[in-house]
């Protein structure tokens, strides 16, 4: 083969390298008409240039969709590294003036008798307790704590919270929810309650759930990791879920909702807990299934993804966003 023939074509890698430099250059703030003209000229030189540029540009543009996710979510690889929750935690801890352990074995949970915490739709709060336990309140949640000597008691009045409890056999940690009683036996668990049902999901350790005496016969179950207990006024049941499913459901701890083969209708219902601006899914679109991780408090971003990735229609009529085919 002659040299002349060899000169003709740059290797694909060479071309791609130049195309990548163009993408970088175009992304700079000082990109001007002159630069665009130079790029156009380079693209026009050969179809090969155009193709390499299109291909890299397509990948570059796709990363734009990532901006829908909150900073920090992607960086960690795991949603639970919590790096970006920490400032909030520090603030909360500082603001709460939580009490002290006294000497001589006297154990004060909190310095005053009762504390209430509430979150509104779309907000979260972390309550750090002096014993090292921590409670995270999800959207639209109220709870109050009581501290009498030697007891640690919390009432979850509504909503959802995640408990990471430092176990102390001498001072049991008790959560009352909808009249039921959950006693920590060294544990991480979440509880969610609404008018109809209360759900307790245990991710680590163990806890005992005592269902209210009432319509149902009083009953006690010990929960193990992966156990999800659902109590209604009439019944209580315990099922086992894979831990990764439970962790997905705890995505809110990182400010995200994680969907895995979730119907659009369910996803919308989950979003609606976090916002006054409600999502409504109409018609057959409701049954579409989606995967992915979304910022919990950004309904609009979700609607826009439904529009651009699922190719649905989203119209905002002021009070709600209606998604349909």
């Amino acid at each position, binding site marked *: *083969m002659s040299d002349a*023939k*060899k000169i*003709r*074509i740059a*290797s*694909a*890698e060479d*071309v*791609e*390298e130049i195309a*990548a*430099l163009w*993408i*970088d250059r175009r*992304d*700079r*703030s000082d990109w001007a008409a002159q630069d665009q003209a130079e790029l*156009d000229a380079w*693209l*026009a*030189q*050969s*179809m*090969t*240039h*155009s*193709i*390499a540029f*299109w*291909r*890299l540009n*397509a*990948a*570059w543009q*796709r*990363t*734009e*969709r*990532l*901006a*829908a*996710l909150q*900073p920090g979510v*992607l*960086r960690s*690889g795991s949603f639970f590294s919590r790096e970006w929750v920490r400032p909030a935690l520090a603030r909360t801890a500082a603001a709460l003036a939580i009490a002290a352990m006294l000497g001589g074995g006297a154990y004060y949970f909190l310095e005053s008798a009762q504390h209430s915490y509430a979150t509104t739709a779309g907000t979260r709060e972390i309550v750090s307790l002096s014993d090292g336990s921590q409670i995270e309140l999800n959207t639209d949640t109220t709870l109050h704590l009581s501290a009498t000597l030697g007891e640690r008691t919390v009432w979850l009045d509504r909503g959802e919270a995640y408990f990471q409890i430092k176990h102390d056999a001498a001072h049991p940690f008790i959560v009352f929810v909808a009249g039921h009683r959950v006693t920590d036996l060294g544990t991480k668990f979440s509880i969610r309650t609404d008018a109809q049902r209360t759900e307790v999901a245990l991710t680590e350790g163990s806890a005992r759930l005592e269902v209210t005496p009432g319509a149902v016969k009083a009953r006690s179950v010990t929960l193990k990791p992966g156990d999800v207990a659902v109590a209604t006024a009439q019944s209580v049941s315990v099922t086992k879920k894979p831990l990764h499913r439970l962790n997905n459901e705890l995505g809110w701890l990182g400010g995200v909702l994680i969907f895995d083969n979730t119907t659009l209708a369910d996803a919308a219902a989950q979003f609606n807990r976090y916002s006054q601006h409600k999502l409504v899914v109409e018609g057959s679109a409701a049954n*579409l*299934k*989606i*995967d*992915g*991780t979304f910022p919990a408090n950004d309904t609009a971003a979700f609607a826009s*993804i439904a529009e651009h*990735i*699922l*190719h649905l229609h989203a119209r905002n009529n002021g009070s709600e966003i209606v998604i349909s085919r």
Partner: protein
Amino acid sequence: MRETSETNPEAAGLVPGGGVAVPGLEAWFVNEVLPLEAALMQFLRRSGRNAHDLADLRQEVYLRVCEAAKHQVPRPVRPFLFTVARNLMIDQMRRDQVIAIDAVSDLEALNIATDVPGPDRNAMARSELRRLQAALDELPPRCREVLILRRIDGLSRSEISQRMGITEKTVTQYLTHGVHVLANLLYAEAEASRRPG
């Protein structure tokens, strides 16, 4: 394999031809052809060539397909793409004078399931974010950090360079390397099967 196209100048688009003049060509390429890249690469890899040559082969296939599309967009594109790829590989074997009968018959047999429908678009769309996230996770950590700071946090190059304590030139190197690797992860290395995601 720089001599790849020398024997077939017409098909190779030797005749200078600008790429951007044809309206809609880029969109067609990105939407219709790029999603087939993983399957194409799987096919090309059977030739047993190295990564450098594979990139050249891919470029050549794309070139031929796009040149053809300038005149008439091939529909459906999938069988056309694979026919082009197969012919190219046969050309090459002849040229290399490697009488690789096995390989050729393999190629013929491979007459790849070209009529199989492409990946379900909805399924692809569904898992888009997850896929992007997985691709980002594959990047070298510093490179990923730079890309995220730029694309998600929207920091400028000088802000990134300050924050990470690296020169702007290095930022550029990470970004250009990042987009190159991402394109491979998102297209060439993407799963060729029709796994819904």
